[in-house]
């Protein structure tokens, strides 16, 4: 065919004129049309077998069945403006968005006084500003950031939301008056002299005691703890001139977030401690951890909340009546901690024995081994389960309605009873809105966990 160009080739041709030798690659033919492009993709992913074809068709049918009416209800037929139920009464109307608009403030803040709502906004904004850089893994200054978010932020948020000035010192003085003669309510600049004298003496006493016992580390720990506690008590004792808002008036998304965030932040360290305790070689620690975990896993959350709200006051001495929201918070945190403990334990068990032995062979102490070798690996393994617990905790917060705390959903239900907005579509609109809000939060958490998983998944893929 082709006339050979090179001399070498010419030689071969000369040997056998009839032999065909291909000298260059033939251009690849385009793949069959049925296997590329949209058609090919569909053949491969949607219609690769009879079963898959059926499933695809059913799926399409379902989407067609659900989505158009949903869009029609939520957007096309929806009412967007109006002042009361009259706007949403026409037959065939879709979602009644003015209802959500009118009640929006309550959905977010509950019965928080309107002129004080800026405080909630500040808390939200501050939380977001501190949380965002904490979530971005590459951001610098993680230690400071974590300290601000987990240490300083709760104290500030507490003061802003409740108004502070809870007279913590007088309360503590009643309960833990360590040096008896120092009682009384002499105050200097609003501070209870007796309490602070008592507090400082206790701190110094404990510190000195530890020093004399030649435990310098302990003394330092005591000093640090007492200092931190002192700052918190002081912060909660100062009158910042904020109008007090009792937790009874909190509600809506504020309560949902307070419960969820407190639950998440307190339950994770507690859960890790419990998991370590359960695997500890010390029998008493192990037994106590097992009892704690099994107790809280053995009772439903609703029972915990009910017990904390209606039974606990019967056992406590009269006069001690812890705040209702606080009781619910403690209940939720304990409950989630027990579940997390088992999740983390699963992670600990998945770490090969060699890792423990290697760490010990390096001469690491138990604490170092856990902190540097075991826990980072174990926690990475169980991220999906941990986030699972957090998401279910977020949604379980709705149970506090049982104990007369109006979370987001509770506020929604209360809004349904307003005769000014009662209409056939009010209920659907409200639940659609609630669904969207809950979805945004839970979906966000789940996507973030997947991102972290990919980032940390540097080692063994099984």
């Amino acid at each position: 065919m082709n006339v050979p160009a090179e001399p070498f080739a010419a030689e071969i041709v000369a040997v056998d004129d009839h032999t065909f030798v291909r000298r260059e690659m033939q251009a690849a033919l385009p793949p069959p049309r049925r296997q590329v492009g949209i058609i090919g993709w569909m053949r491969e992913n949607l219609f690769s077998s009879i079963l898959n074809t059926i499933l695809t068709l059913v799926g399409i049918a379902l989407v067609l069945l659900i989505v158009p009416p949903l869009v029609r209800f939520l957007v096309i037929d929806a009412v967007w403006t109006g002042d009361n139920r009259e706007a949403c009464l026409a037959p065939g109307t879709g979602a009644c968005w003015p209802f959500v608009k009118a009640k929006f403030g309550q959905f977010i803040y509950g019965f928080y006084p309107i002129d004080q709502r800026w405080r909630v906004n500040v808390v939200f904004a501050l939380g977001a500003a501190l949380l965002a850089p904490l979530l971005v893994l590459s951001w610098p200054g993680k230690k400071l950031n974590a300290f601000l978010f987990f240490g300083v932020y709760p104290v500030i948020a507490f003061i802003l939301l409740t108004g502070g000035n809870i007279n913590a010192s007088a309360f503590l003085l009643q309960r833990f008056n360590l040096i008896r003669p120092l009682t009384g309510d002499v105050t200097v600049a609003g501070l209870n002299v007796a309490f602070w004298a008592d507090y400082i003496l206790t701190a110094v006493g404990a510190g000195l005691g530890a020093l004399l016992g030649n435990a310098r580390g302990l003394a330092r720990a005591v000093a640090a703890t007492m200092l931190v506690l002192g700052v918190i008590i002081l912060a909660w004792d100062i009158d910042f001139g904020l109008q007090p808002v009792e937790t009874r008036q909190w509600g809506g998304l504020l309560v949902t977030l307070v419960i969820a965030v407190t639950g998440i932040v307190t339950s994770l360290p507690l859960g890790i401690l419990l998991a370590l305790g359960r695997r500890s070689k010390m029998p008493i620690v192990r037994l106590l951890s097992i009892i704690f975990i099994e107790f809280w896993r053995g009772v439903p959350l609703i029972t915990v909340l009910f017990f904390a709200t209606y039974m606990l006051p019967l056992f406590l001495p009269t006069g001690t009546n812890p705040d209702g929201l606080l009781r619910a918070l403690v209940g939720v945190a304990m409950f989630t901690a027990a579940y997390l403990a088992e999740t983390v334990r699963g992670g600990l068990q998945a770490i090969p024995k060699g890792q423990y032995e290697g760490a010990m062979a390096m001469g690491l102490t138990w604490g170092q081994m856990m902190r540097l070798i075991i826990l980072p690996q174990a926690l990475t393994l169980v991220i999906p389960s941990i986030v699972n617990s957090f998401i279910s905790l977020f949604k379980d917060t709705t149970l506090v309605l049982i104990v007369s705390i109006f979370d987001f959903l509770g506020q929604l239900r209360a809004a349904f009873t307003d005769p000014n907005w009662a209409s056939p579509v009010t209920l659907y609109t409200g639940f659609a809105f609630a669904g969207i809000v809950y979805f945004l939060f839970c979906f966000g958490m789940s996507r973030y966990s997947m991102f972290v998983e990919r980032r940390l998944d540097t080692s063994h893929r099984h």
Partner: protein
Amino acid sequence: MKRLLSTLALCGAFGLAAAGAQAAKLDQIKSKGFIQCGVSQGLPGFSTPDDKGNWTGIDVDFCRAVASAIFDDPTKVKFTPLSAKDRFTALQSGDIDILSRNTTWTISRDTSLGLNFAGVIYYDGQGFMIRKDKKVNSAMELSGASVCTQTGTTTEQNLADFFRANNMTYEVIAFATNDEVVKAYDAGRCDVLTTDRSGLAGERLKLTNPDDHIVLPEIISKEPLGPAVSHGDDQWFDIVKWVYFAQLNAEELGVNQKNVEEQLKSANPEVKRLLGTEGKFGEGMGLTNDWAYRIVKHVGNYGEMYDRNVGPDTPLKLARGVNALWNKGGLQYGMPIR
């Protein structure tokens, strides 16, 4: 053992001292500066939060009337939304001062549960709602009907009693929440919807075509709803009771929010005694003599309170009916102030 005994004795002494030292409710309220009022978690017209997050409704207004009488300020009330289950516990434990939560006055509650009912804010009763096209005009024709109702309420019990007493068969379809009941009835899963008649008026608003439904004339139960306080403080009980009577008397004498200032100059001795320009009836209760004037000024008389929350001009459109004054054919009768 001796130590144990002395501890016990000490505890006993403390308990006694605590009981003796317990101040009268009115003094407690005056010193804390507000009334804690237990309301429902949401019932149209009775207690429900409005767009601004303020509680409104006839039960709520009554608490505001009590606050007006004591503090001359209707905003000195804090509301505790209570579920039906924990309302009595909250009152007994002293968590709330008044229970104004559409609570039916019954003998067991008034006696063994330790409540004192101050009056009847609203005479309610269980009724039936049915579609017009069923062509039923009386509850007596309901034999064989399927009835939608809420579980775990006295409504279910009353329903059973009524049908058994009249030898009729029925099928009950019960749901956990009110909203489910209404949706089921609206979707045609049952023929009849039953609950208190004030409730029916509220549920009707949620139906697709409210005009296609009628409320049958029969009332199958007595549900006198009123505010209650707990046993053990007669002064506080008296105050709550007379706030209610004062509102009724004000309506009867034609004293209302608009004309109360002029009525202060009225020559009518009954009006004078009501508004405190004559006599010292307020002081007898531990209040000021213009206590009733304050109530009318801030909250209005009973009729105004009714019209504002459940009356014909509200979405609920409830006619006065048996809740009219005694001289207009109703049951509301204010005891005389003299």
